[in-house]
């Protein structure tokens, strides 16, 4: 028993208080997170204070579904007064003087923030190995990675160190770790959830989303975090909707497209089989499944790495040692201060991407790289648009493989290839969800991905929920030992 909707019921019936629930989670973090390493910061005192307030609110009958329920937040989402590091030495001591809009929205719901979750440094990576602070282990196998960049978020939910968590997804950073750790991971449409207070990696691709234990919780969290924010010019002023209403709708007449390019080479057999099984499940439930084509898929990955690195090279320029965060201890003059601070403050992967992005934007190369990548982006959007004229959702693997061992992907390009199934969605700004689809022979979770047209999150949730009800894969849980 550990979903939001289950806890909400217990809290409502006063069988459990938020303070009790929060203490349970803090105790479990204390006992189990030493092995998992999902949290960078745990804020027990603030959490208990928030839980106390939530209990008062519940007593007054003013609770929402999230009131009094603990949550973990990825460490690139600003939390007022709580260190927000982006898992980087550069921001090891940065305490934001403000809340991100999503943080504020969760607080307004009476959520209890347990702490800040580990990630790849500045969300650049797919294994959480690039964190400055620690490695996060996959709760299913401690010798394997949890995925990334939101590895801490995925692992914490999987190991039940948080009922749910927030993460961010620039090229798969929610869906891939959700698949690796057996969570439901949603990357909403670009513009649905405010980015204000999310420390930017690639502004035109970043989107905040959730890690939950099932699809119902996913809809509940989306209800809380979605919606227009005047502080984010790219947020969309769309009608408010209750996403839980999409759960349990019949699938009859739903058209599911299966893009063939996503099942071609390099996909682990068990994952291909999981997609094939999902097709059978959907057909059985009354949906029509059909092979379809996204011919430009192979260009998504290079376009993604150019655009995201270009934006990152500019977004991360503000970390210069002048105003906050790390500053080199010894330097002579301004240029020296910049160079030493940035050389010491950033890790290898971040520096690699800054170099790549700086190059792509340089005079004389802009047209060949950045501009070309943006043109490809336009074409990929068209590719998807054509598919959505025919299909309600698209079904693909979330990842080409299940979670691999630490150090296994030491070549950066091999690591980048792991994003092959997820990046196109960000390029096109679409919503996508990864849902658990069983385990492979090694006992590692498999994720399948559903993609919908912009702002069609309801269709995603309808399809995901139906699959979950039929298969029950969301009930799989790893065994994580508690150490006294």
């Amino acid at each position: 028993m550990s979903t939001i909707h289950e806890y909400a019921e217990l809290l409502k019936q006063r069988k459990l208080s938020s303070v009790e629930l929060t203490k349970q989670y803090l105790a479990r973090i204390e006992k189990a997170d030493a092995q998992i390493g999902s949290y960078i910061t745990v804020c027990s005192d603030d959490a208990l204070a928030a839980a106390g307030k939530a209990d008062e609110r519940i007593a007054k009958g003013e609770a929402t579904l999230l009131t009094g329920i603990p949550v973990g937040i990825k460490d690139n989402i600003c939390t007022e007064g709580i260190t927000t590091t982006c898992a980087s030495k550069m921001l090891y001591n940065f305490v934001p003087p403000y809340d991100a809009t999503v943080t504020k929205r969760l607080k307004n719901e009476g959520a209890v923030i347990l702490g800040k979750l580990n990630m790849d440094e500045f969300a650049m990576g797919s294994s959480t190995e690039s964190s400055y602070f620690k490695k996060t282990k996959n709760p299913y196998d401690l010798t394997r990675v949890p995925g990334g960049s939101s590895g801490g978020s995925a692992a914490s939910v999987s190991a039940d160190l948080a009922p749910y968590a927030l993460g961010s997804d620039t090229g798969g950073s929610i869906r891939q770790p959700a698949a690796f750790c057996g969570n439901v991971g949603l990357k909403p449409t670009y513009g649905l959830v405010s980015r204000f207070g999310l420390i930017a990696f690639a502004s035109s691709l970043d989107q905040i989303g959730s890690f939950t234990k099932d699809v119902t919780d996913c809809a509940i969290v989306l209800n809380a975090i979605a919606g227009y924010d005047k502080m984010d010019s790219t947020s969309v002023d769309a009608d408010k909707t209750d996403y839980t209403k999409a759960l349990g709708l019949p699938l009859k007449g739903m058209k599911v497209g299966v893009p063939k390019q996503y099942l071609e080479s390099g996909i682990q057999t068990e994952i291909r089989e999981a997609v094939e099984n999902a097709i059978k499940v959907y057909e059985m439930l009354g949906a029509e499944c059909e092979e379809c084509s996204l011919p430009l898929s192979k260009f998504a990955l290079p376009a993604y790495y150019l655009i995201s690195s270009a934006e990152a090279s500019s977004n991360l320029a503000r970390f210069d040692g002048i105003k906050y965060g790390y500053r080199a201890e010894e330097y002579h003059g301004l240029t020296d201060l910049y160079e030493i601070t940035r050389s010491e403050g950033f890790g290898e992967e971040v520096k690699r991407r800054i170099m790549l992005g700086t190059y792509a934007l340089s005079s004389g190369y802009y047209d060949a790289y950045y501009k070309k990548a943006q043109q490809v982006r336009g074409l990929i959007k068209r590719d998807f648009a054509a598919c959505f004229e025919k299909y309600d959702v698209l079904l693909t693997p979330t990842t080409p493989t299940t979670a691999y061992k630490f150090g296994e992907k030491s070549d950066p390009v091999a690591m980048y290839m792991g994003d092959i199934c997820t990046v196109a969605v960000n390029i096109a700004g679409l919503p996508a969800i990864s849902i658990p689809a069983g385990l492979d022979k090694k006992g590692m979770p498999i994720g399948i991905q559903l993609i919908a047209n912009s702002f069609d999150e309801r269709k995603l949730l309808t399809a995901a929920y139906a699959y979950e009800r039929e298969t029950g894969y969301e009930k799989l849980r790893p065994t994580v030992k508690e150490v006294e």
Partner: protein
Amino acid sequence: MTFETVIGLEIHAELATKSKIYCSCSTAFGADVNTQTCPICTGMPGVLPVLNKKVVDYAITAGLAMNCEITEYGKQDRKNYFYPDLPKAYQTSQYDLPICKNGYLDVEVDGAIKRIGITRIHIEEDAGKLIHDGLRGASLVDYNRCGVPLIEIVTEPDMRSPEEARAFLEKVKSILEYTGVSDCKMQEGSLRCDVNLSVRPLGQKEFGTRTEMKNINSFSAAYRAMVGERQRQIELIEDGGEVVQATRRWDDAKGESFEMRSKEEAHDYRYFPEPDLVPIVVDREWVERIRASLPELPDERKRRYIAELGLPEYDAKLLTASKSISDYFEKTVGLGAPAKAVSNLLMGDISRILHEREMESIPFEPVFLAKAISLYTEQIVSSGALKKIIEALFDEEKEPEEIAKEKGLIQVSDESALIPIIQKILNDNPKAVEELKSGKEKAMGFFVGQAMRASKGSANPQLVNKLVKELLKI
């Protein structure tokens, strides 16, 4: 060899918005350091910009006043460079789709009208200010100015002399003031310019190699910089040297420019579209609404002064060059003062006193000037006394009549008081009486002067004139 100078300008004007371009911090000048800042304008991690719509309004206003086309679909771009006064390490500006383009202004130099092309007007944010603390050997940053909205006006290389460039700068300043787009306070740095200048042998078609002098914050300094740089380039060429394309700094105190960085060292700003902001879409309705609200501009006002108030062209041009002077003029005339009298005082004594006292605006209300002028037109005070009253008004805003009384400037218009004085002068100066009687009008001046002296300046000169003639029966 005769050389021709080619000048292009880039003018930065701070807009008169109350809040900054991407956040709600105040733009007021002179606040304590770092008191008008927030996470957004100090570039904290995770913050996002939201464009102040008023900035676009002002840019469109400036564009329309300068005969520009307004871009329907504009965007903002990031200009990337590292400097401590730029907390995001990029300036949000506009690269290839500025709000306004292809405009022009006509300027008048030595009676000839010259059309200067305006390439573009774009919006961008200002940077903060570095303060060098000599005591601690440290550099500190004040972010109050960071995010203050600017427009940058870029001209074609259409100016052929420092005089033309100066006339253009003055024209731009008066338009920005008239439209309320900028308060153009040079001392506060709200108007600054970069000068691009080259020379070429007269008759040569190709431009010479140009240099750029950055961040000049007064028109007189800009003029001196242009004269100086023209001279430097001509001498260099005449000595067989070559002008090197470079960015230079004009040292106004030394009267010389110094090379800051050469072309090779020029920054690669790696412009790219700002992903945190949406395109600026300006529809016709928006443009027309602003066009309809444009105020009377200096050229129109000048024409009206000539046609309706009968001012000479010289007066009309001078008055309308400054919006504040011109507004003051209108208010004073509106109170019934004769236009030419007001114009004379504004262009003459008042502007002299403003200059002497280094003041930017007239410290007393137009009603006081109107009253002072009416004392003169009603012959209660003399023209000399009027000047004294105005001088006194600069010290203290006070009823002009009271000033005239206190200072004993009221003219004696009482005949019975003047007759004995004049009679005595006539008696004492028989030779002058003879001259006057023989038709030498000059002698009258002598009597008036004597009467003024005897009455300590309080005699009404017209009355003296009349009484002299009556007493001598001429």
